[in-house]
């Protein structure tokens, strides 16, 4: 075993002074294995979703706990979990998967407020934060807190309640975990403010939560007036899928596994290239090969890109 590893990584007579792993045939074998494994993983994900698939350890309780921790650190009252807002968040998540979009407004123009109203929550203030591709609740909260707009939403004194949905599905051709946070209040939470300030702040709250298009102050006002009248919880063609069968949690998280394996392969090649470079320079062996340093830089770039790709996104 020791000799094999030596032969694989250490330039010596047995491998013609080039680490065996860096020989053309070895690289070709690794390339073939990676392509085969990619197709195999994909097939297993489809045929055996209980073994290999996408899941996260995010729960509404954790999200609420971490959000309230941040609010307490900023001397703000804790939010309470509201079932109507959770239903609205679930409807929004299902709608995003059904219509395949990653935005605050649906392709057919449904704003987040439509889902909140349809769930029967008569808000005065409302907001929405979205996240995808995260594997734990703390990372979601940290990402939102790192974004000034989302942070403003989470730390707003205007909200009293919150609802969450954590759903797994296919979005833009990618299996992902979607987190929807709906914030709201049915009464003025903060101390009374002058009318013009209040109007401005209400608008700001909704602007913060919507990337594009931004609702106009008029539509915000209309929403508020409409909320005074009782609304049908299931109006507007929205159906809360209460009978949805939960997808069993797979044994292995494919995203984490493939990310770890990819990083491992990159790290092994970087190690082999650096070792090869150091040994050859010390032994002053003349070879006609490419510059190892070029490949090390390229593989380091891949490592960075993997980190960039597997991290979650927020809007």
């Amino acid at each position: 075993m020791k000799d094999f590893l030596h032969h694989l990584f250490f330039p010596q007579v047995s491998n013609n002074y080039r680490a065996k792993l860096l020989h053309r045939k070895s690289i070709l074998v690794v390339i073939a294995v990676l392509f085969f494994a990619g197709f195999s993983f994909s097939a297993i994900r489809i045929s055996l979703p209980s073994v290999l698939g996408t899941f996260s350890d995010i729960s509404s309780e954790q999200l609420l706990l971490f959000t309230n921790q941040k609010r307490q650190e900023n001397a703000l009252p804790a939010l309470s979990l509201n079932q109507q807002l959770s239903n609205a968040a679930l409807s929004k998540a299902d709608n995003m998967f059904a219509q395949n979009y990653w935005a605050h407004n649906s392709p057919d123009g449904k704003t987040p407020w439509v889902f909140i109203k349809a769930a029967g929550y008569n808000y005065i203030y409302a907001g929405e934060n979205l996240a995808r591709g995260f594997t734990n609740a703390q990372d979601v909260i940290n990402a939102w807190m790192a974004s000034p707009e989302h942070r403003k939403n989470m730390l707003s004194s205007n909200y009293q309640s919150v609802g969450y949905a954590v759903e797994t599905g296919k979005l833009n051709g990618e299996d992902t975990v979607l987190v929807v946070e709906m914030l709201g209040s049915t009464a003025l939470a903060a101390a009374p403010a002058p009318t013009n300030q209040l109007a401005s702040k209400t608008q700001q709250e909704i602007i913060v939560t919507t990337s594009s298009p931004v609702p106009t102050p008029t539509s915000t006002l209309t929403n508020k007036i409409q909320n005074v009248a009782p609304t049908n919880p299931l109006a507007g063609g929205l159906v809360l899928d209460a009978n949805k069968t939960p997808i069993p949690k797979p044994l292995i998280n494919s995203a984490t596994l493939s990310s770890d394996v990819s990083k491992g392969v990159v790290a092994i090649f970087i190690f082999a290239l650096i070792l090869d470079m150091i040994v050859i320079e010390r032994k002053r062996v003349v070879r006609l090969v490419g510059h190892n340093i070029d490949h090390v830089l390229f593989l380091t770039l891949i490592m960075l890109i993997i980190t960039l790709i597997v991290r979650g996104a927020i809007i």
Partner: protein
Amino acid sequence: MFKKINEHVAYYISLIIIFAWGIFLISSATPNKQLQMLIFVTMTFFYVIWGVLHHFINHELSSKIVVEYILIGTLGIAIMFFLLKGGFGI
């Protein structure tokens, strides 16, 4: 290693610019993983071209070196393919 970098500092600056540009584009394409893969393949193509040109200008180009850069580039693409196809079902 550092001697080699010092001798070819202009080449490495150009390579780092290509990579920095690629990272910026990939970051901007988040969360569209198909587009990110496309940008990565393009960047790999430029890496291979850069490697071949570098050796050509320094009069040390051979078919073995061309194959080596193509193989390392293909290895990078295979790693990204495994990550995206196996991990995210792209």
